[in-house]
């Protein structure tokens, strides 16, 4: 291993790859496992010197749209989020494939199979197929670094956004990465066709035809791609398509000098027709290894499932859900596996919990007491640390669905007659997509009590800037909440009785109230104190 390699997480390799590919901006909203891409660029002196844009956006949709704007202006932009963030950005994302790009536009979507930190394990490759754009899916950190530049080149050549899809395992695994010289940024240059980005139906139809006509070129570029590699084996009994990181789990189990399988390492989509056909024609049966949904397996198998056998997640050769690992792949290959001794019965589960000293704890202690006179089942929470209020000792919340859903679900439940209904949302999630829901509630004066537990940060993802910047009260007033029913409180033990009283009063009010318990996240507080001491 050469000395000039950097030891980087997959996400950090992508960030450095983007800087070296000559990006002018990165746009993102924090979400595990994608957060550290923006954080790396924010911490990079090189990025500062190059004047690369690197502020957090309010949500994934605004991030995606800003990146489209930068692409319109001729420069390279990277947009990053976790898989469910792509749902938020989907409107902009899908339409950006119709506008096409000017400067290169790369969309990084980080999937979380096994739901380590997520509500689902949706597979972003479906979005890319839906949008009809190429995907690069690195199998290791070096590829992650290099593929960013490839993605930008493809984007500018094909006139479409290009997706890079990673999973948690690659995102948060570290390895040595060799880097290349940094490219110059593109010059400001408007699209040669001034109507390219004007998606009036007449123009969109023309653009869409162009996108359709580009599909064969996308396929042939995938066939020629250095990232789609065929490895010949000693036997023709089984051909294996190993996508992205699944390739590593396969090779962990294969002796390179005595490999019995024909293997297609697939890391550049669309599926390369030539290689897939060659594998199918050569081998008696196929096995598809892919982390996430069985999208490749489904495509190769077809609805009618006629022809040679295709094995994978759909026929039970591999589990239908959850991330892959070397042992699962070994079993699929029919290999003997050794498992160490079982986990002793004495070992207890240790679920995550709110930090000792966290303000959300005081919020839930007060809320539980204030709700004592009411029947249970009326608290709608949101995405963030405070979702942990669902677990013991608080058992305080009844929902966690998607970013912003607390306020709107409370409103819907109140519309149905569940009064009072309570929403619990954090400051960052509120500015992400709680504000519009609050506007709905204000417009109908819905009898809901909204608790915006304001710790001045996006806590769960590690303390990123919250787009509220201390302006929650002003935002609520601006949206039309009656100032008499906006209360700022301090969630500490000493104020418990007072905070319970405020909650009780507002729970009884037949309209929109907003209670804003404000106390800095204990984690960011500790870090700030430490850096102030060291300064």
């Amino acid at each position: 291993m050469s000395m000039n390699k950097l030891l980087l997480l997959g996400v950090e390799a992508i960030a450095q790859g983007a800087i070296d590919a000559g990006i002018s901006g990165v746009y993102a909203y924090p979400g595990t496992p994608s957060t550290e891409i923006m954080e790396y660029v924010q911490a990079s002196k090189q990025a500062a010197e190059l004047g690369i844009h690197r502020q957090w956006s309010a949500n994934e949709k605004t991030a995606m749209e800003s990146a489209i704007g930068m692409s319109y202006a001729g420069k390279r932009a990277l947009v990053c989020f976790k898989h469910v963030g792509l749902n938020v950005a989907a409107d902009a994302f899908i339409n950006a494939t119709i506008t096409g790009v000017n400067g290169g536009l790369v969309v990084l979507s980080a999937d979380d199979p096994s739901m380590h930190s997520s509500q689902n394990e949706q597979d972003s490759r479906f979005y890319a197929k839906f949008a009809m754009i190429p995907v690069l899916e690195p199998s290791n950190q070096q590829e992650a670094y290099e593929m960013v530049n490839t993605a930008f080149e493809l984007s500018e050549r094909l006139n479409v956004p290009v997706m890079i899809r990673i999973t948690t395992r690659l995102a948060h695994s570290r390895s040595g990465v060799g880097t290349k010289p940094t490219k110059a940024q593109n010059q400001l240059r408007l699209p040669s066709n001034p109507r390219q980005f004007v998606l009036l139906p007449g123009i969109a139809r023309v653009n869409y035809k162009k996108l359709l006509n580009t599909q064969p070129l996308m396929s042939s570029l995938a066939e020629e791609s250095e990232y789609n590699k065929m490895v010949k084996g000693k036997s023709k009994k089984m051909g294996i398509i190993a996508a992205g990181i699944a390739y590593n789990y396969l090779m962990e189990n294969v002796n390179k000098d005595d490999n019995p399988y024909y293997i297609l390492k697939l890391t550049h989509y669309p599926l390369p027709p030539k290689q897939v056909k060659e594998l199918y024609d050569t081998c008696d049966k196929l096995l598809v290894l892919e982390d996430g949904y069985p999208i490749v397996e489904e495509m190769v198998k077809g609805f009618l499932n006629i022809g040679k056998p295709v094995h994978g997640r759909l026929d039970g050769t591999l589990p239908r859900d959850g991330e892959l690992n070397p042992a699962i792949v070994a079993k699929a290959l029919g290999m003997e596996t050794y498992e160490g001794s079982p986990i002793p019965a004495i070992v207890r589960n240790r679920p995550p919990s709110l930090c000792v000293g966290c303000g959300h704890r005081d919020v839930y202690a007060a809320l539980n007491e204030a709700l004592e006179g009411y029947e249970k089942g009326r608290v709608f929470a949101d995405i963030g640390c405070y979702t942990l209020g669902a677990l013991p000792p608080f058992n305080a919340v009844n929902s966690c669905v998607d970013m912003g859903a607390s306020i709107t679900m409370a409103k819907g439940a109140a519309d149905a007659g569940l009064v009072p209904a309570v929403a619990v949302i954090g400051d960052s999630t509120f500015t992400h997509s709680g504000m519009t829901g609050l506007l709905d509630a204000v417009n109908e004066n819905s009898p809901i009590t909204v608790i915006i537990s304001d710790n001045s940060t996006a806590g769960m993802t590690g303390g990123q800037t919250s787009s509220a910047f201390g302006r929650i009260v002003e935002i609520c007033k601006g949206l039309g909440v009656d100032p008499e029913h906006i209360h700022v409180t301090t969630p500490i033990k000493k104020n418990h009785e007072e905070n319970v009283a405020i909650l009780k009063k507002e729970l009884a009010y037949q309209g929109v109230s907003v209670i804003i318990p404000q106390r800095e996240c204990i984690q960011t507080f500790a870090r700030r104190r430490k850096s102030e001491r060291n300064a």
Partner: protein
Amino acid sequence: MKTDIILAGVGGQGILTIAAGIGLAAVSSKLYIKQAEVHGMSQRGGDVQSHLRISDQPISSDLIPLGKAHLILSVEPMESLRYLPFLSKDGWVVTNTIPFNNIPDYPETEDILKEIKKLPKHIALDADSIAKEVGSSRASNIVMLGAASPFIDIEFSKLEDGIRQLFGRKGDDIVEVNLKALRAGREFTEKNR
């Protein structure tokens, strides 16, 4: 040469510092390395683990296969038992004996230690006390790294260099305390294995 290590602990205990120490030593020994870690929700007081693989040959999987780990290095006793399915037949468990109790049904420490003592190859030490003795209660993770070092196929001097690199920014005193902690941990294992 190949060493596969499961690092175990509770979110917030700082197992990634140990990983960084080994990582720096591996890089300066020109070894290949892959290290998968846990970010996100579990870091809030949940059980966390890191798969650390070092080898003189390129490494395929970011995850250690079940039954293949040479070493489980745990900074918390109950957590040392959670990953036993990953341990190879002749693998070692090196663990701190001081519990991190943040759940209501945490077992009796004695019962956990009994379970650890059943393992054919284990080193169990009170790293917190050893860290205090060498001058910093915050160095217990580095004591643990030292205690595991005889089972990691990297020269000890490279691990010492790793500590110097890791703590260099914090001044000579901090470096010195952590080097002492590293050596004290190693000494414990050499006497007790």
